[in-house]
């Protein structure tokens, strides 16, 4: 990896309406937008719509998903299927997955001036693995190599609404997804409810400490998307990622 970025980026917005910088100072010319929230909060739908908007506009973007590195996938699958994972190895194997995407995609693309969109990021690990009993300090260290997002959208829906969205459509909950490894309940659905509640608490606690932008997951999809697009335009100098920009 290059020790320093060689690509200069114009920092001043075209028509600076005020003195506040639109993007925080970063050691790379790209930008990173992530969505977080519990299952059923609507985050993936919203990120998909944001991605479509940017794609159609021809912007230089890259989309990345939690838990998707091809290098680590088979081990993660094996671990989950055969129930080999402890809270520690569950956390580590996801960190390895994340590291692979970081080193081979996220870092190089940020350095190359891309707008990177991530469906779930390190906060997923912080919320979920701390609920499993991993030390929060240990987790923060583990992921300390991760670039800090320019915007972290936190989609929040009341637990019952989120649960109904999930449980209504797809009753097939997987072992770890339902938190069955924690012995919360013998009933898988009940275990899932309790586990999601724990994760929601963890997210809520990070809202202030990690500068989450709170998004109300009960607002109609198109309205929420409008809010999201406005915020992205406000915080990120999209000109820089436009098709006709030098790059």
């Amino acid at each position, binding site marked *: *990896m*290059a*020790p*320093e970025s060689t690509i200069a980026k114009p920092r001043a917005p075209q028509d600076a309406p005020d003195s506040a910088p639109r993007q*925080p100072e970063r*050691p*790379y010319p790209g930008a990173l937008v992530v969505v977080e929230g519990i299952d059923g909060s609507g985050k993936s739908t919203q990120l998909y719509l944001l991605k479509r908007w940017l794609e159609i506009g021809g912007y230089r973007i890259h989309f990345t998903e939690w838990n998707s*590195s091809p*290098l*680590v996938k*088979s*081990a993660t699958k*094996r*671990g989950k299927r055969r129930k*080999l*994972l*402890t*809270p*520690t*190895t569950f956390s*580590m*194997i996801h*960190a*390895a997955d994340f*590291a*692979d995407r*970081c*080193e*081979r995609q996220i*870092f190089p693309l*940020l350095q190359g001036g891309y707008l990177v969109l991530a469906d779930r990021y390190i906060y997923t690990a*912080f919320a979920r693995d*701390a*609920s*499993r*009993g*991993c*030390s*929060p*300090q*240990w*987790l*923060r*260290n*583990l*992921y*300390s*190599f*991760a*670039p*800090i997002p320019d915007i972290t959208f936190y989609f929040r829906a009341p637990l019952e609404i989120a649960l109904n969205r999930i449980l209504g459509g797809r009753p097939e909950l997987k072992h770890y997804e339902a938190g069955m490894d924690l012995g919360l309940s013998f009933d898988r659905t009940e275990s899932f409810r309790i586990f999601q509640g*724990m994760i929601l*608490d*963890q997210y809520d*606690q*990070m809202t*202030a*400490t*990690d*500068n989450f932008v709170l998004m109300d997951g009960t607002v109609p999809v198109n309205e929420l998307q409008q809010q999201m697009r406005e915020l992205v335009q406000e915080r990120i100098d999209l000109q820089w990622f436009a098709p006709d920009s030098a790059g």
Partner: protein
Amino acid sequence: MDPSDPREHGGDGQPSASGDGAARPAAPAAPRPAEHPPAARSRFYGSPLPRTSEDDLSGMLIVIEGTDGSGRSTQIALLQEWLESNGFAVQTMGLRRSNLIARDIDDVLAKNSVTRMTLALMYATDFFDQLENRIIPALRSGMIVLADRYFFTLVARAAARGIARGYLHGIYEPALRPDLSFWLNVSPSVAFEREFKKSQVISYWEAGLDMALSNDLFKSFIRYQSMIKKEFENLAKRHQFVKLDAEAPVQTVNRELRKHIGEHLRIKDLSYKPSSALIHLWR
């Protein structure tokens, strides 16, 4: 700053709270598993493994570290026989032996398709899988665990590749402190000679070729192994290694090992002669 470089994120496992609120410690959250008072010497280095009690670990964890060609495997085979003949049950562990992820590591190493942080974390996963599923259960049933390398090698290799030592020690905080750690120390040139003699080739990774130190295999091996050795010098102080001269004959090194372990286990008669199965190692 290179975003990949955790050197920028403070030392010794402590995430820095610098700048844009990057790696601020999480707000105190989930009930943490039993906090240890600073005075009590925990068997863990830091925050303990979740859902693991350290109270009933009656066995003994012995770590044998040293580069390839230091005679580790030979010594471990001999020690296992010696301990068993003295009535101690032995369990072994080593790198890349977990059920969870060992074969995937083999795979990415063979394909040479992995970057440094990912590899470091895959090895850490392999390590913790064995720690939780092999070492701890063995210690709980009172066995002697002989570790053919421990996380020290993993820290040394990753640190040589520029990953911050503080970050690495942070990752291994929930690891168990060994009762005894030995470092079988050999010079890089002796290690080269022994490895070459054994397999007639030097592996890509043992020579550190991924680090582009030199196109010359011999030079690369020597440079890389010297870097690892330097890391081990630091680790030796930090973790109180018993440093042994592994260029000495097998018998001499073995006698030293038996002396230290025997003292710990109160084995009075330290004499040992390998069985016919292992006598070929006795030179």
